[in-house]
């Protein structure tokens, strides 16, 4: 089993899938010679050349839009948006074209494609290199959305996304790109199921739910709680659309207390949806209100880079509230 960082896993999974299926093409700004500004496409250009690894003009609309037209014509494009903050000039292509194509054409056309984008804060990037735009995607019917937090999950979900028949927005937690190394599978067909989350830890006192970059702080908070004798169940949603309602409801119903963590702005966050669903489906099982720990409803600040994030202390404070309720 290879030990790899998150970003290495992305590059190697792309490499393997491109070897396996010559319909796979990669396109984006600097994905070619440069190997991507984070090196997530390193080595691909040398291996597959300019027809399959395409350095594009500086236009996210061109990148995402062209990927749609390629997918429609039989290719399997993996588009890169350099930072998820820069998806917005190409947002119309995602919302108006990719997401609706199968539906609006009555199934005549569909766009099996992946749009990769590094997301999240904590890298001293200010609001235009730190945002978490997943709400915009999960609220857009027709898009699947993934935001893994570990190399192993990145490997399995990226493969599933690339082999699927739907457009997938694949968010990558850039502050975890090189933060950890872990063993990934050698099985060239190791995939992870659509719409399934994963339990990172089991406990009976409180359920912590998060995904993406914030999983790091969530897991740290759980470890800190364990030191105080408090055992937390930790759910990594991983797939954000569809999200794993079954797993969430089952664990929260069992424990009765839940804290939800996301670093996107608070209002109409994905965890607002999860909390609303919990309240709607299993109200009577709750022993305390579902408390959300999120990014603030401000643009992402540069000087207070870390303060903006739902750090360990804010999670612990919420857990305390929920336990003392």
């Amino acid at each position, binding site marked *: 089993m290879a030990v790899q960082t998150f970003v290495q896993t992305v590059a190697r999974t792309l490499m393997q899938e491109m070897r396996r299926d010559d319909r796979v093409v990669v396109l984006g700004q600097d994905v070619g010679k440069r190997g991507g500004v984070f090196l997530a496409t390193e080595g691909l250009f040398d291996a597959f050349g300019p027809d399959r690894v395409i350095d594009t003009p500086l*236009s996210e609309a*061109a990148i995402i839009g*062209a990927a749609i037209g*390629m997918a429609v014509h039989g290719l399997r494009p993996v588009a890169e948006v350099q930072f998820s903050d820069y998806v917005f000039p190409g947002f119309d292509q995602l919302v108006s074209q990719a997401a*609706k194509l199968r539906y609006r054409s009555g199934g*005549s056309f569909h766009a099996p494609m992946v749009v990769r984008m590094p997301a999240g804060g904590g890298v001293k990037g200010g609001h235009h290199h730190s945002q978490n735009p997943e709400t915009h995607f999960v609220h857009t019917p027709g898009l699947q959305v993934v935001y893994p937090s570990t190399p192993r999950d990145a490997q399995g979900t990226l493969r599933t996304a690339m082999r699927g028949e739907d457009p997938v927005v694949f968010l990558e937690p850039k502050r975890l790109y090189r933060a950890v190394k872990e063993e990934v599978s050698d099985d060239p067909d190791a995939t992870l199921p659509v*719409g399934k989350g994963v339990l990172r830890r089991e406990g009976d006192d409180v359920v912590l739910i998060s995904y993406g970059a914030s999983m790091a702080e969530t897991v740290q908070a759980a470890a800190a709680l364990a030191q105080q004798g408090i055992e937390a169940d930790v759910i990594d949603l991983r797939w954000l659309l569809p999200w794993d309602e079954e797993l969430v409801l089952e664990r929260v119903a069992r424990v009765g207390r839940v804290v939800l963590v996301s670093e996107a702005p608070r209002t109409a966050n994905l965890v607002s949806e999860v909390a609303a669903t919990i309240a709607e489906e299993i109200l009577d099982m709750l022993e305390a209100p579902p408390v959300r720990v999120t990014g603030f409803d401000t643009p992402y600040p540069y000087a207070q880079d870390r303060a903006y994030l739902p750090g360990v202390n804010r999670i612990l404070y919420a857990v305390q509230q929920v336990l003392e309720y």
Partner: protein
Amino acid sequence: MITDSPRFEPFSPDPHAVISESGEWIAPFDLDLDDDTLRGMYRNLVLARLIDERLVRLQRLGKTSFVAPGAGHEGAQVGIAHAIEIGRDWLYPYYRDTGLVAAIGWPLEKLFGQMLATRADPARGRQMPAHPGSRALNVFTVASPIASHVPPAVGTALSQKIAGKGDVTVCTFGDGATSEGDWHAGVNFAGAQGAPIVFACENNRYAISVDLNHQTGSGGIAAKAHAYGMPGYLVDGMDVLACYYVMREVVANAREGLGPALVEMAVYRYGPHSSADDDSRYRPAEEVAAWRLRDPIARLRRFLERRSLWGDEAEEGLRSEIAGELDEAVAAAEAAGPQDVDTLFEDVFAELPAHLERQRERYRLARRAAGEDG
């Protein structure tokens, strides 16, 4: 006779035309189309016009909710239709291209099925009228957001380039579309990559009420090709044969790997922007009348008549033949019946996910509780 050398100059100050208003051949090369082809083009022009008229009638009868009249654009649309290899090349049309999809032979029952959103619509009634699409004919289903089909069209052309089989894509749009960022993004990418695509603008000088001079400072559309390193051609869009010949040339160039082109076809829309519009608010009736005198159907008819290929009898026969086809197609489209309510949950993804299944189920329960069917 076709040669490999370009016959038309890019960036000409005047529009290219090959037949005069009075129907004379005025091109510096020989006509190389046989009589049947010429009559076929004429038939397609008339078909487009009659579909248009039928749609306006259906809308007034309340049978369809929306029409985007194409009258005045037929020369451009039929010219394009005859210049591509149907079923091989790809088309990315826009909502005013009813005449184009009819001319490439999209079955009329489907066409009206789409307009009436019955089960005869291959798109299952998902979109407004005037949003055709066909997998079989490589016609990318029209979407409403202006110019949003341009980057996808370029993607298809890049895929064709990679495949290396000489297939090409033709992407059409109006003059207004050229202002959108997505239009620029797509055309620029095509230029940078030398993708085998032709961008064909049906320039009717208005985007709803906004006239060309409020749309852009460039005066016309062909000049915009300079920005992308590709040739731009200005064509008289009321001359179907000029549209055909220019398109044939640029399609052939793209097929041979010579890269993309932009073709501006000067047309006019006789009617309002759509059935929801009142064009008297923004343009003078005289302007409309003047353009109607330049009608592409009348012009080709004069050309055919000069060659004794057409006459009143043929005209009458054609019109009643088409009227019959339209009657049949409309009847068949209507007979197919309405879309089933539950299909509203399908085709969001390849498979119905659990949350949509729950939403569908809950909706059924609510309908049942209210005593509604289902």
